[in-house]
């Protein structure tokens, strides 16, 4: 370990099980003190990646470095890494205190009692030290699992779907709590989840994984506003993806055409060649009655018919049938000032050109599924 930085570096990390590749040549550097999320659907290789970092799974190829230390071949107990397991894996035969003290005792730390109680105080459960894990609620067990890992002050803390078993309200609360604790202890957190909201709320950077590879990596806002692939566009929130044809450029914009209507995408947010899909988030679109004028300078699509309007309280979700047969989704905030549209209304869609993104159109799988939504 160097005195300066101890980044976590994965180089060409690969794991093959008989017949399929779970993790496929992963290159990734996670900075010290960062809250990093690995996000993806089940089977994308995120948990396998985590288990390789923990030493619970042996890589088929590649290496894992912590700063200058090569830990690829090290046993789990030889790594300055701890894990918060899915479903917590608290020792049922030990008290909460002994669970938290387990790692300290194994390392022969001096003041076990003081440190373990401090860790329990960090998660605000000091008063439950003598209970058994089975006597605690799910949320409390989750915190104990966190305290049990954090107390060892590892260089990297791995969290495997830590909030998956909690109900929505508790999950929200724990998201804030986790973020607070991470800031307080300053340990690198690597968080595996399939819940995009969880990743976006907490992480400094998110890597979206699919089929054992990283599809895109960046800050949550970056991924959301400018997804690089159709997979990211659909996995992270919802997207409207429209197949378009290129028709030229205009300054910093690429001009595209759909059903004879001209639209603009910023060239730096647009895939440079091949089939093109124009993407726009549903909440970026504003609905206008077909008769009303639309302010100039906006991307505009006319000829829509409202198929369905669902009132969701905060917003109204519209499904709009376009002339070329595709249904687009529009979220309209219920500000109480705009017009509400009912089923069958003739509408037009408008949005800032800067909110469009252009994706390489592997005009297949990813897109079809959005059409059905």
């Amino acid at each position, binding site marked *: 370990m160097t005195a300066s930085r101890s980044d976590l570096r994965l180089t060409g990390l690969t794991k093959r099980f008989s017949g399929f590749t779970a993790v496929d040549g992963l290159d990734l550097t996670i900075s010290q003190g960062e809250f990093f999320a690995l996000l993806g659907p089940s089977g994308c290789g995120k948990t396998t990646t985590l288990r390789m970092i923990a030493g619970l799974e042996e890589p088929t190829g590649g290496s894992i470095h912590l700063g200058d230390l090569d830990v690829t071949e090290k046993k789990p107990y030889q790594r300055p890494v701890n894990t918060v397991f899915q479903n917590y894996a608290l*020792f049922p035969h030990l008290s909460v205190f002994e669970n938290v003290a387990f790692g300290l005792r*194994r390392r022969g730390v001096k003041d076990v009692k003081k440190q373990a109680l401090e860790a329990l105080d960090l998660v605000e459960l000091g008063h439950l030290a003598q209970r058994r894990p089975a006597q605690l609620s799910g949320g409390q067990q989750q915190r104990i699992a966190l305290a049990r*890992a954090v107390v060892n002050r590892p260089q990297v803390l791995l969290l495997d779907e830590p909030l998956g078993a909690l109900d929505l309200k508790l999950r929200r609360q724990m998201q804030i709590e986790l973020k607070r604790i991470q800031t307080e202890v300053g340990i690198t957190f690597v968080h595996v989840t399939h819940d995009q909201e969880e990743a976006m709320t907490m992480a400094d950077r998110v890597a979206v994984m699919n089929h054992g590879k990283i599809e895109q990596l960046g800050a949550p806002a970056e991924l959301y506003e400018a997804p690089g692939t159709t997979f990211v566009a659909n996995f992270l929130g919802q997207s409207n993806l429209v197949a378009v044809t290129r028709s030229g450029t205009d300054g910093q914009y690429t001009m595209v055409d759909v059903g004879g209507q001209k639209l603009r995408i910023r060239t730096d947010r647009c895939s440079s060649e091949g089939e093109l899909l124009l993407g726009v988030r549903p909440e970026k679109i504003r609905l206008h009655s077909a008769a009303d004028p639309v302010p100039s300078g906006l991307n505009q699509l006319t000829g829509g018919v409202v198929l369905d309007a669902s009132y969701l309280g905060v917003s109204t979700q519209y499904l709009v049938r376009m002339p070329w047969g595709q249904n687009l989704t529009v979220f309209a905030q219920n500000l109480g000032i705009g017009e509400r549209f009912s089923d069958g209304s003739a509408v037009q869609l408008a949005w800032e050109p800067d909110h469009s993104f252009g994706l390489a159109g592997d005009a297949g799988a990813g897109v079809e599924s959005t059409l059905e939504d």
Partner: protein
Amino acid sequence: MAALTPASVEPDELPRASGRQLRTVLLLLIPGLLWLGVFFVVPIFTLAGTSTQTPSGSGLPGEFVQTFHLANYWDAISAYRGHFARSFFYSILATLLCLAIGYPLAYLIAFRAGRLRNLLLVLVVAPFFTSFVLRTLAWRQILADDGWVVSALKWLHLIPSDLAVTASPIAVVAGITYNFLPFMVLPLYSSLERIDPRLIEAGGDLYGTSFTVLRKVTFPLSMPGVVAGTLLTFIPASGDYVNAALLGNTRTTMIGNVVESRFFRVVDYPTAAALSFILMAIILVLVILYVRRAGTEELV
């Protein structure tokens, strides 16, 4: 907080049995209760009755009258104190050996056997397909002083060259260990197999070496299996007489052999009955002490 533990929640949630359901339950219990009554409760009272009888005046063997002669117990204890001690010594030793052999075996089957798991389990039970007596007799051959097993061990200097194994306490304990091993392995396996592998991973993740994790996590969590296995081995082993009869000599007789000979050869029913009750009482006390000490009720 207490309300969150399943135990305190469930009783309230259970639907109350209606009168009709209750009748069905009782009806279903009748065969079992009848069985217990006819083949357990009645015999145990008969046995208790027999244990305090004294010979009738007729002088005919096997004729006894009830005289509530409690001294039978005292006589039985003082006459066979050594046999009791030997029985428990052998059975405790055999139980410990079973645990020492059975634990690694059960561990292997539960965690490392992969696809071979079921095959290995069948192999553990396979000896039961052959007669108990035949298998025990086979051990006579295996442990014969001039047989190849003992010769090979002597040649390897694993046992002293002048050691007599045939018809010795060693042979008896070996026989008991062999015969009761499956009763140790199966409960151990079932409790090891139920341990969440993530707990073992968590032990390693929290800086425990394989051995520490075994000692601090796996073994404590397998305690229900250890307790069940040791009881299933120890209890029948203390009353066993086949191994001592077939593999031992006159100086290795266990209490089971005494009961057998009192009953069938000497036709001294009261002593045999008293010995049975004493054996039962000692086992009961030992088991209660053991289970209290092992404290399995704390494990969920």
